[in-house]
């Protein structure tokens, strides 16, 4: 598995898209610094971009990478190696290369503007951790969808729909439910609902760390009130890990029984 991972990672890191993705974060973060200056302000602005963009790019890369390497996967399948190791290796190579792009693109400007030795370092770390989690989660979901669907267009459409659902539609439904049932106590529902959306959960996690109640929103406030900041973070991180594990297990299951 590590061998497949290594070569997938090298292949992907040299692709044009990886360069573009890294360059985008580099330029965007630099221009944020140039415009606003303060480390904490940049972290908050960047948070909103990472929460939407990291899942989108991971979704698109995941589907594209699977379909593009289909023929090569067949060659790998003919080699003396377990089927599950091939696809888990490819997935991990993809998720790691996305994370590396994010780390480089965002990390370099922050290092330049003196994040090391600043009290903001832990908030910045949380931002990176969340970005990496989202890359792992959404590339796993995309890879799983691509494995399930032979038809490229169907696979691509479905994956984008999943992203759209978590990034946009979910919040809409959630707000609608809140306003419809505003007479009832909704705290538990709110906590539960945010656990089922990795993007919401990531937002709550960063805001808990930043401790900005004005931006925390309903779920953030509820989680802080009921669980407190530190246990809330531990629970959120655990649930995010489950969000990585679940689709990864799905990839493993499909890889073991699929016909190629």
């Amino acid at each position: 598995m590590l061998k497949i991972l290594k070569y997938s990672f090298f292949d992907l890191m040299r692709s044009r898209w990886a360069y573009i993705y890294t360059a985008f974060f580099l330029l965007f973060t630099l221009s944020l610094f140039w415009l606003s200056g303060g480390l904490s302000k940049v972290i908050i602005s960047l948070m909103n971009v990472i929460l939407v963009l990291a899942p989108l790019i991971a979704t698109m890369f995941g589907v594209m990478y699977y379909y593009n390497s289909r023929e090569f996967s067949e060659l790998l399948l003919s080699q003396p190696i377990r089927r599950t190791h091939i696809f888990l290796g490819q997935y991990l190579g993809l998720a790691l290369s996305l994370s590396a792009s994010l780390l480089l693109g965002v990390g370099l400007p922050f290092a330049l503007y003196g994040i090391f030795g600043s009290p903001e370092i832990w908030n910045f770390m949380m931002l990176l951790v969340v970005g990496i989690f989202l890359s792992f989660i959404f590339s796993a979901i995309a890879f799983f969808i691509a494995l399930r669907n032979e038809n490229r267009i169907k696979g691509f459409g479905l994956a984008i729909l999943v992203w759209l659902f978590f990034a946009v539609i979910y919040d809409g439904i959630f707000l609608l439910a809140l306003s419809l049932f505003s007479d009832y106590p909704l705290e538990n529902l709110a906590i539960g609902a945010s656990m089922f959306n990795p993007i919401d959960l990531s937002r709550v996690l960063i805001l808990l760390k930043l401790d900005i109640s004005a931006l925390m929103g309903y779920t953030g406030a509820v989680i802080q009130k009921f669980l407190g900041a530190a246990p809330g973070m531990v629970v959120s991180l655990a649930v995010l890990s489950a969000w990585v594990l679940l689709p990864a297990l799905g990839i493993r299951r499909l890889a073991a029984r699929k016909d190629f």
Partner: protein
Amino acid sequence: MITIDNLHKSFGKLQVLSGVSLDFGRPGIYAILGPNGSGKTTLIKSILGMSIPDKGQIRFQGEDIRGRWDYRRQIDYLPQIARFPDNLRVSELLDMIQDIRGEKPQALGRLIEMFGLQPFLDKRLGNLSGGTRQKVNLVQAFMYDSPVLILDEPTSGLDPVALIRLKALLLEEKAKGKLLLATTHIMNFVEEMADEVVFLLEGRIHFRGSVDSLKREYRENNLERAIARILQGEQGFSANGHSQEAARMARSYEL
């Protein structure tokens, strides 16, 4: 070496293989023929463990291959479509395969020379032409000395020089006592190379035997025509579905 017993496979409603039994016991070159969609590739993929049969059993050197992967160490495979990761170099791809198999290839240097790939070793695979990629494909398939070679459309996209070298290579491997299975649509290639022909039609084995016996059975001097005869026979007698029987009956009637 490979025994296939009553193999069934369907994709959804489409029945691709319905009861294929084959035995590749002796070494030699076997050509697997049949029109598009007759189940050639599915048969090959089943042997390699890429497709999982619905029913039936495949044994490699006496052992059931279901759920196993280590037997593939003894098979070399040439995929039909030569597509590799675009951003890896040729040399890196070859390294990767060696890395996965965990053994040194026996014939790598010679093959690179034979197909003139020396100048391309540092090039990225995405920048190579289709023919050059097929040569890389051939090198990766032939670089180990495994007892079984499975080739899916080996001639596609090759220039005449490379084709001659490929044929020489196949004869060389056969002389070493290997088992070679090849699917192809090129009848010249079959007539020249194959010791035995397996003709698949609608997921069943329609004919198995030497090229000469196929010609004799269908009373044609030309392999292409003999094949056409089988296909036309199938259309004419599709009610009972066994044109071979039908052809035999027709012949005895004439006599």
